[in-house]
């Protein structure tokens, strides 16, 4: 993590915190998160409730909590000083997010195609006819078999994985510079999952998009991304090159790897994590010791 923002930095976050008020005092969902990224693929992994989605939402200016940061800079623009209107311009056009609950993000009483065309017209200021073509192309690109039928279907008439791909198609309509994808492929069969990731990969390589992939699938992100950020209880506890995941130092990261069903014998219980109090506030030093 470098301190100096440089010009090819797409996103620079310094000391991001997200807090929710509660009757038991404030809940810190995100604590002192700092990272920078260029036009590359980074993954955020970590336990359920560790603050991955809230980090993504804070970047988009959509967190329902209290967000503070020393720096939140996107492609030279200080996101914290933007007016609501300017933020809305950036959101959707330049930064897109595929939300974790795809069907929940779709309007249940409006046909899929109508929603896509509306989104497309807002984002790209193009004619309805062009928007229609663009939407059909995107549905095909995410490997929906029968784009015409899906276009005319209501959200409850498509399967879970189709819903996810519709959301991905919608977020890619405007060719964003930064895509935050929150568990975008968790409901897809593995073949389609890889095909959809390949679309994102091509956008990163060919058009210089930056990708933040939030995922639970450690082997997948290790083979797909460039770098991995591991979150635990609101903090980034380890940052590691994707190809070096098997040499992770943090006991939490190592513990996660040991929980995979593929590492277990059938009939034997899976390894589970024994969470340590010390993980809440300690950090890894250069030698890989927790201090």
């Amino acid at each position, binding site marked *: 993590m470098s301190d100096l923002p440089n010009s090819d930095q797409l996103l620079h976050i310094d000391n991001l915190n997200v807090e929710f008020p509660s009757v038991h005092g404030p809940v810190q969902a995100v604590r002192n998160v700092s990272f920078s990224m260029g036009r590359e693929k980074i993954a955020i992994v970590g336990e*359920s409730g560790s603050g991955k989605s809230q980090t993504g939402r804070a970047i988009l200016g959509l967190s329902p909590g209290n967000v503070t940061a020393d720096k939140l800079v996107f492609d030279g623009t200080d996101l914290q000083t933007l007016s609501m209107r300017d933020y809305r311009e950036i959101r959707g056009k330049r930064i897109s997010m595929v939300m974790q609950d795809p*069907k929940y993000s779709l309007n249940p009483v409006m046909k899929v195609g109508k929603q896509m065309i509306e989104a497309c017209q807002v984002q790209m200021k193009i004619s309805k006819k062009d928007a229609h073509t663009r939407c059909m192309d995107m549905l095909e690109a995410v490997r929906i078999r029968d784009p015409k039928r899906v276009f005319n279907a209501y959200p409850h008439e498509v399967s*879970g994985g*189709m819903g996810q791909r519709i959301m991905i198609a919608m977020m890619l309509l405007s060719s964003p510079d930064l895509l935050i994808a929150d568990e975008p492929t968790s*409901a897809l069969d593995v073949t389609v999952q890889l095909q959809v990731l390949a679309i994102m990969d091509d956008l990163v390589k060919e058009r210089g998009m930056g990708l933040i992939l939030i995922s639970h699938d450690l082997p997948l992100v290790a*083979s797909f991304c460039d770098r991995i950020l591991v979150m635990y209880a609101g903090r980034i506890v380890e940052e590691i090159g994707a190809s070096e995941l098997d040499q992770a130092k943090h006991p939490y990261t190592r513990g*996660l790897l040991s929980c995979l069903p593929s590492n277990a*014998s059938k009939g034997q219980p*899976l390894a589970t994590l024994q969470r340590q109090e010390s993980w809440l506030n300690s950090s890894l030093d250069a030698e890989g010791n927790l201090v």
Partner: protein
Amino acid sequence: MTSMQTAENADIAIDIDNLSIHFGSGEDLVKAVDQVSFKIPAKQSFGLVGESGSGKSTILRALAGLNTHCGGQMLLAGEALQNERSKAFYKKVQMVFQDPYASLHPRHTIDKILAEPLAIHGLDNAERRISEVMEQVALPTKFRFRYPHQLSGGQRQRVAIARALILEPKILLLDEPTSALDVSIQAEILNLLNRLRDELSLTYLLVSHDLGVVSYMCEQIAVMQHGKLVELLEVDEHGESHAQHPYTVQLNLASKGYDREVIGQFIDHD
């Protein structure tokens, strides 16, 4: 098929017999489930994997009485299911939905969501049952009076699993129960499901796209594509199965991780 022969001797919990489910008509006709048959012996875990949109959820929803079928039949412990499901049916069979957020009432607290099935079935000791089931799925008690939108995705999924377990059903229909969970919570839930299966003699029909999960959990795996069951696999004690169908072979290849070269060579098995 050998699995069918062994199955015939055992108690059959679920018998799906030549089931067809269609949606729409004319040009928009979708044969979501197309003449599918399989049998699940009692106390088995049966995995359903396959293409997105191949009809897996539709089968589960049909069993739960949420979709009507147009051909074949479904038998539960030897008895054909009619279109109407009784209250007793839901005491025996519970489903965990793929889309937990959509299936949790947004204006009800977790406490209320868990208390509701107990009230419907006239069960007492709500207080004790709710705290027990929350502990089983590793949900801290501080979440009890929160609303679904105040929880993370994985926490919501655990609420959905808790709601199904609270009635102590005999058969659980699980639609991607752990795909929203991190691997450590997944391990806890899978261990929990296996422990409950042993203790309470449960039968599971488990949909998952994660071949590692179904191979670890299940004795048999059905592979679906395009509404059809294309292959029925036996899983041996080492978690190995021997796929023959080209679609299954490709699935196995894809589960090895991301490789741009390999993906370019994937074919659609129409």
